[in-house]
């Protein structure tokens, strides 16, 4: 087969994927932009998407940027960033040891343990969250336990707009997505490298610090990206466990503008702004993970 023919074959093989991305990402994304930069129907007050970029109107987008930089959306953005960072930190503290144990020490039981970690995710997300709502009630089992063990003197108000609950709920919702990629990256680390480190005089701790941790960096980055992206877009967890203005995240405001009222262009603009920020983070991730791979190689 000629080189040219082969290129054609690869292009043909990539076609379904390309089509998929165009149909399910590019077109909807363009539709969001068309709503954000479109106009409003004078009779129905409903958004009319403007498909022709020559006629795009950026008033709504400018308003959203202004409010995000210095207005009411600023605390919302900062809060969202803080919650996601905290949730990632907890994911790391909880998820790393679990993934490490699975990859290194679980032996024959690792398949079983991995399955057990994923088992709760066989249950529908809403059902699991509703179960938590019952457990976290003022007179629920969680508070019963805390009171019984004298960890607290009065019931913790978990569900009264408590930021701690929101962060923990985010962790709970996404931690398997953190553990699984991290596990696979830890699992791939060549045991002989660690043996070499020990031969060269490293203690267990320093071997971890100088060999395992740097080698799992790309896995950590992937796990972080895979969990952070949906956390940024999550609004329902927050609605369920808090529903209070004290914990409003960006996605909650997007939901407000897109589900009701006649300012859909503001919601669509907020989607675009959020996507732009996430793309910056994504670009950083791509650059950093390539660098991490180069180090590993």
């Amino acid at each position, binding site marked *: 087969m000629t080189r040219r023919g082969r290129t054609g074959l690869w292009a043909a093989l990539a076609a379904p994927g390309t089509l998929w991305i165009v149909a399910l990402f590019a077109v909807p994304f363009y539709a969001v932009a068309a709503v954000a930069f479109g*106009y*409003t129907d*004078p*009779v*129905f*007050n*409903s958004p*009319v998407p*403007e498909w022709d970029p*020559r*006629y*795009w*109107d*950026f*008033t*709504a*987008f*400018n308003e959203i*940027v202004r409010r995000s*930089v210095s207005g*009411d*959306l600023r*605390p*919302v953005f900062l809060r969202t*960033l803080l919650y996601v960072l905290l949730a990632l930190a907890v994911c790391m503290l909880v998820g790393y040891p679990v993934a490490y144990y699975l990859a290194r020490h679980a032996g024959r039981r690792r398949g079983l343990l991995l399955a057990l970690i994923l088992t709760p995710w066989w249950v529908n997300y809403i059902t699991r969250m509703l179960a938590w*709502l019952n457990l976290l*009630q*003022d007179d629920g089992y969680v508070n019963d336990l805390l009171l019984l063990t004298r960890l607290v003197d009065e019931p913790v*108000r978990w*569900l*009264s*707009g408590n930021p701690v609950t929101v962060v923990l709920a985010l962790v709970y919702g996404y931690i398997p997505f953190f553990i699984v990629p991290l596990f696979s990256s830890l699992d791939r680390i060549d045991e002989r490298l660690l043996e070499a480190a020990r031969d060269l005089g490293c203690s267990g701790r320093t071997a971890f610090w100088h060999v395992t941790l740097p080698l799992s960096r790309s896995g950590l980055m992937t796990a972080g990206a895979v969990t952070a992206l949906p956390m940024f877009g999550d609004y329902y967890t927050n609605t369920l466990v*808090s*529903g*209070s*203005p*004290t*914990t*409003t995240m960006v996605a*909650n*405001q997007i939901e*407000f*503008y897109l*589900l*009701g*009222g*006649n*300012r859909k*262009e503001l919601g669509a603009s907020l989607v675009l*702004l959020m996507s*732009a*920020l996430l793309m*910056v983070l994504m670009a950083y991730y791509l650059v950093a993970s390539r660098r991490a791979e180069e180090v590993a190689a």
Partner: protein
Amino acid sequence: MPPSIDRRKFLLVSALASVSAACASERPRRPSAASAVPLSRTDSPAALPLHDDIPMIANGLSPEKGGTLKLLNYAEYISPDVVKKFGKEHGVEVEITTFTTQEEAIAKLRTAGAAFDVWFPTPDVIAKAAVGKLLQPLNKTYLPNLGNAWPQLQNPFYDEGARYSAPYNAYTTGIGYRADKVKDATGYDLLWNPAYKGKAYLIDDPREALSLAMLKNGSLEINTEDPAKIAQAGAWLTELVGLMSIKLGITAYQYVPEGQATVHHCWSGDMINAQSYLPKGVDADVLGYWYPSDTTGVVGTDSVAVPRTATKPVLAHMLINHLLDNAVAQENFSYTGYQPALTAITPEKMVTDEFVTEQLKTAIVTPDVYARSQQIFQISPAAEALWNDAWATFKAGQ
């Protein structure tokens, strides 16, 4: 956030702005202050325009046979039994398409090729729909039961002469509470009482919640377009964040009986429905509903109309008439929890018929309540934007 991102964002915005300035445009722009649709008020009713190209159906036609009668309604907002019996009687299938907001319903009605026979709009969108040619005028000769409706709604302010709509349900907005925990239900200040901190909820809707703040503070201007007054209402609501750890929701029918909420700003139908959400061993007497006995309450109604695209318009009229029948309406009520706006439905009768407990008599709406209460009207798009802004600021929770 690192300054470089801010700069990048700034550059992006300026780039976009210059592009937009560069291209001259003759397209319609953002909503202007003037609305293309008449804004009806109880004291200045609107007669909605009739269109030559959309005639009403002729008198005395016989109902269409076979096929599917298509309803466009909120979820769980009509009794499946009532619908099934009606379909059986007339030999048609009945199919219900649901929506969550009226904007969504209008989008569905405007979809090319979509046809619906009966739609359940709220009064604030009927004018838009009539001006926008989505509805057909009703032929009242098919609606003898319209006489069962409240007198005010046989000729409603939002559709003078009931050209396009018939009344469906009525409800008030008040405060649902746990009668076992609240000693006296004194008024709107229930939601400003720190004794219920963390167990207090507002309806998650800008107009309803901001109106509550105005009414609590003695203002009846719940349709104002004055930016200062709207912002003031937002400030009043913000008090609740610190004072009450206020939460937002629309599931009072569940949270009050289950005890997650002690006081919940809600619709009257929520408390009637709450009777079927009581956990085992909890008595219906724990449910209370407070509604002001003066003019400071909010009342609302829903209606039913026939879209222009109806393929079974005669049968659609017959279903509307069926729903206005006293017995059918009461059966429907027992399913939806939302009360038909019919004169035969009185608080006393509802208690005797064991529809509601004595304590929930306040959740039944009467023509008197309707007459003395305030209503949330359609306002200009520009004003609606202000209400939304005030709400977004409150929700951002600085």
